[in-house]
């Protein structure tokens, strides 16, 4: 398609006449002329039509500024007129003219000064354009710009918060940032921060069921919101809100949306809310869920001053803040739990080290308390169950100044089965009891009298975890960890840690207890097996010693035996059964019975060894042993000796001390074979010494070194009677520290 160009220019001569007056008066703009001081001297019709003003009221009488609104007049004096003076003209300045009817007309004004050049006064020519539409546009523009500025300032505030959140390393720091975030951004009076806690975090009232057990997915009490920080407001009296509560805090946490609630009295929430807000006359409360991955980790409650509205933008800003804070919280809590995990591992490792180094059971418990306080708790109480009921073994407080009070509790208020103490409750229930906070009323029920209650309050018994010590299904005792009011409440992680610690202790306790039982049994057996003192043998002086290794009091597998025979000779033996326990003692008993029976029947030492080796499987003996058996005629000094893997006997006589060449077979219980028998004479005044390896063996050196030392020391004891020879050897060779049992048997033929 092609357009048709105009074929003819318009003919000016046929256009209607336009007089200058018409051009002036009917111009599409207002047109004003004024003198230098602003007095109007000419006004066109357009301006009069727009404003409803009359020419006769204006010309020569009014100044331009008189036609403006008050604000416009001041603007005229302070901006417009100076500009006009300085520049000689102004362009498109926005002003408002007051119409005759009092309404205003937005206008854009341009003006230019014309010099009178000596022929008349200076004049100012002014055009006035109707700017109604432009003003509307400007106002839209202004509104947009203001809203942009407002949201920019909010974005800046948010950006700052986000940066601070990013810099926060721990949950605590994140919470601090969140608590202070809303203040500047929304002119909030203050805010509180609540974090979601998994259930069983304990209602203050334990009720008839007592404190809660942490077992179960959410615990019996359900999830809660716990107050963790506040700023600008006093802390609310109620610091825990059930997640199923009808309070808006809980509602926000449940649905993940920002909730804004109206002033008290206007909504149904007022009754329930008052305990958790503290500012009198609080007008608006915004509840901002702290959300990460669709999960509410907590709620920020912002208290806004009365009359402060929350725009949609501000609400969406709060939502963003909540999401940012939620993510930061999640990140920080991951980091926290990593750090806590590392701390927990370090703690348990330290505990294990301490437990391993303990010298006995009570020491174990003492050291455990030392590790637990104050790292895990402020107070640690350990009770052990005995036949007579629980015995309070340990009570420790992290503050040395309060230790005497805990000592008093240990002394006077040990738990009694059936009382209301955490220890007794845990013993009765057989389960971990966890109560993050207890109040005075609860403590009153848990204590026995006023003094007990006073002690509990004075030591700061504000919350506790009581963990039973269970081993092999048996209840050995209970550990109670308590914390002061200043310490953060015990968390699920703390409870887990307490449980693991208790497990370690229970193992130690169980071992010790089993040991205790065995010790008593083997002690009784040994008491029967080891003659307290050999019977007096005519023509022989005897010395015997039995020293258990220090760690295992009185228990051991070493033995000695002296048996007078019917033919006037003496049978004797020194042996060493592997192990130090009941089995070792039983084995020793059997060896002794068999050897005594065989010797009584007239068997020689080698025969005893061979018969023992042969019958070992039949006897059902579980442990191997070494032994030296002998038969001595006190009258002649004739002696026969046979060894099963045992250190060689020693003879001390006038020539000195020497090991006798009693070549033994291997250990009893290892192999069957003919055993050589050594025979010789013990001269009058000489001493035959049988011993176990505990006398000569040291871990740091070879056996031959120990034997050389024995020979050297024994050589100095020629003049000693058997008893003092034993003392000499023990003093010189063994000392205070024994790692093994020692049995000694010394037989001396007196000089005639």
């Amino acid at each position, binding site marked *: 398609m092609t357009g048709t160009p105009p074929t003819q220019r318009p003919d000016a001569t046929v256009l209607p006449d336009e007089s200058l007056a018409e051009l002036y008066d009917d111009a599409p703009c207002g047109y004003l002329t004024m003198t*230098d*001081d*602003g007095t109007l001297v000419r006004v066109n019709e357009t301006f009069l039509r727009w404003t409803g003003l009359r020419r006769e009221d204006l010309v020569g009488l009014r*100044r331009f*500024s008189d036609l403006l*609104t*008050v*604000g*416009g*007049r*001041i*603007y005229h*004096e*302070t*901006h417009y*007129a*100076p*500009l006009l*003076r*300085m*520049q*000689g*003209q*102004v*362009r*498109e*300045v*926005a*002003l*408002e003219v007051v119409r005759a009817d009092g309404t205003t007309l937005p206008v854009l004004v341009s003006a230019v000064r014309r*010099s009178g050049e000596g022929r008349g006064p200076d004049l100012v020519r002014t055009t006035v354009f109707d700017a109604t539409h432009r003003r509307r546009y*400007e*106002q839209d*523009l*202004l509104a947009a*710009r203001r809203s942009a500025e407002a949201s920019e300032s909010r974005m800046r505030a948010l950006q700052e918060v986000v940066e601070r959140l990013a810099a926060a390393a721990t949950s605590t720091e994140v919470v601090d940032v969140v608590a202070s975030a809303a203040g500047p951004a929304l002119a909030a009076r203050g805010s509180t921060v609540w974090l979601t806690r998994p259930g069983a975090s304990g209602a203050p009232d334990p009720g008839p069921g007592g404190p809660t057990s942490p077992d179960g997915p959410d615990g019996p009490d359900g999830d809660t919101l716990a107050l963790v920080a506040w700023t600008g407001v006093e802390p609310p009296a109620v610091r825990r809100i059930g997640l199923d509560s009808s309070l808006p805090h809980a509602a926000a946490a449940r649905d993940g949306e920002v909730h804004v609630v109206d002033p008290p009295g206007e909504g149904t929430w007022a009754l329930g809310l008052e305990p958790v807000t503290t500012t009198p006359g609080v007008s608006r409360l915004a509840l901002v869920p702290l959300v990460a991955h669709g999960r509410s980790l907590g709620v920020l409650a912002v208290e806004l001053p009365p009359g402060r509205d929350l725009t949609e933008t501000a609400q969406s800003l709060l939502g963003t803040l909540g999401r940012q804070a939620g993510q930061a919280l999640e990140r920080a809590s991951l980091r926290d739990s990593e750090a806590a995990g590392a701390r927990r591992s370090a703690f348990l490792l330290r505990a294990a080290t301490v437990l391993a180094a303990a010298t006995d059971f009570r020491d174990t418990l003492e050291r455990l308390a030392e590790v637990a306080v104050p790292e895990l708790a402020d107070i640690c109480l350990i009770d052990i169950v005995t036949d007579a009921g629980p015995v309070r073994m340990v009570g420790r407080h992290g503050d040395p100044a309060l230790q005497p009070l805990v000592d008093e509790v240990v002394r006077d208020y040990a738990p009694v089965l059936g009382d209301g103490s955490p220890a007794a409750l845990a013993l009765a229930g057989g389960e971990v009891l966890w109560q993050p906070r207890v109040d005075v009323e609860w403590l009153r029920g848990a204590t026995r009298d006023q003094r007990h209650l006073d002690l509990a309050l004075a030591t700061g018994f504000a919350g506790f975890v009581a963990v039973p010590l269970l081993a092999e299904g048996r209840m050995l005792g209970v550990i109670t960890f308590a914390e002061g009011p200043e310490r953060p409440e015990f968390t699920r992680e703390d409870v887990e840690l307490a449980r693991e610690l208790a497990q370690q202790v229970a193992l130690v306790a169980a071992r010790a207890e089993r040991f205790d039982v065995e010790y008593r049994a083997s002690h009784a057996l040994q008491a029967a097996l080891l003659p307290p003192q050999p019977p007096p043998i005519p023509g022989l002086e005897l010395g015997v010693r039995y020293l258990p290794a220090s760690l295992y009091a009185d228990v051991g597998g070493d033995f000695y035996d002296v048996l007078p025979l019917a033919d006037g000779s003496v049978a004797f033996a020194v042996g060493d059964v592997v192990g130090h326990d009941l089995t070792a003692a039983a084995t020793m008993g059997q060896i002794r019975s068999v050897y005594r029976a065989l010797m009584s029947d007239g068997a020689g030492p080698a025969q005893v060894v061979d018969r023992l080796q042969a019958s070992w499987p039949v006897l059902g003996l579980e442990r191997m042993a070494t032994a030296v058996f002998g038969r001595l005629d006190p009258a002649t000094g004739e002696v026969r000796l046979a060894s099963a893997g045992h250190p060689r006997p020693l003879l001390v006589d006038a020539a000195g001390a020497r090991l006798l060449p009693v070549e033994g077979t291997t250990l009893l219980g290892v192999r069957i074979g003919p055993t050589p028998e050594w025979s010789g004479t013990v001269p009058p005044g000489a001493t035959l010494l049988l011993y176990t390896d505990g006398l000569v063996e040291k871990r740091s050196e070879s056996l031959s070194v120990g034997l050389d030392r024995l020979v050297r020391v024994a050589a100095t004891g020629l003049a000693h009677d058997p008893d003092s020879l034993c003392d000499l050897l023990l003093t010189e060779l063994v000392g205070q520290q024994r790692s093994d049992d020692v049995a000694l048997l010394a037989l001396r033929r007196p000089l005639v």
Partner: protein
Amino acid sequence: MSAAERHHARVTGVPSGRPMVFAHGFGCDQAMWRFVAPDFEVDHRVVVFDHLGAGSSDLRAYDPVRHASLEGYADDVVELCRELGLTDVVLVGHSVSAMIGVLAVARAPELFAALVMVSPSPRYVDDVDYVGGMTPADIDALLDSMDSNYLGWSAQMAPVIVGRPDRPELGEELTNSFCRTDPWIARQFAEVTFRSDNRADLDAVRVPTLVLQCREDAIAPPPVGAYVHEHVRGSTLTVLDTVGHTPHLSAPEQTIAAIRAYLAGLA
């Protein structure tokens, strides 16, 4: 950054001459003095500057707290004079800067030799037994107008090159290039200016003072000038035969003559 840089201060004239510091009023900047200040360069050391928020001042230095009262502006003036090492200063203040001058002189009397108040008003709003020329409603209307007439007040119009054969030095300047102010700061300044009441401070002025009053002035009408003259001890009142609030623009020759006559009388 020095005070001189913050305030875009320009120092001209005779270095050994008596210093004259010209402080502009609300709504404009140091350019206001362009028809008056140069006349004094022949025998004075002339300093012009912009208040923070106006002209080429450093907007970042504006402090909403410090500048929430005229005292903050007075501190600025004192700081500037001290930094430039000025003493024996003739301080010429227009409109609100006349009151800023009153406060500056009270703060550092050792710096100032004389005060020239151009179109001053110690209080713009009428009060019992006092005529300021405006009602509280007028001030509200002014501030509303500043809020709604955002583009107008910021004076940021479409730039148009203008030619001025008679004033070639303006040839390259843009339309409305003078008196640019940061709109937000201008709004704050308006509030501080038009809600201020410095009547009580007039009594403390202890330097020779000249009050210049226009014959007609919608912002500071003649009774206000008379009030200032009455309450500043030993002051001289000169009424200029011009209309408006800015005699240094509408009647620069009269303004110069009045100031020169007064300063001559002091010497």
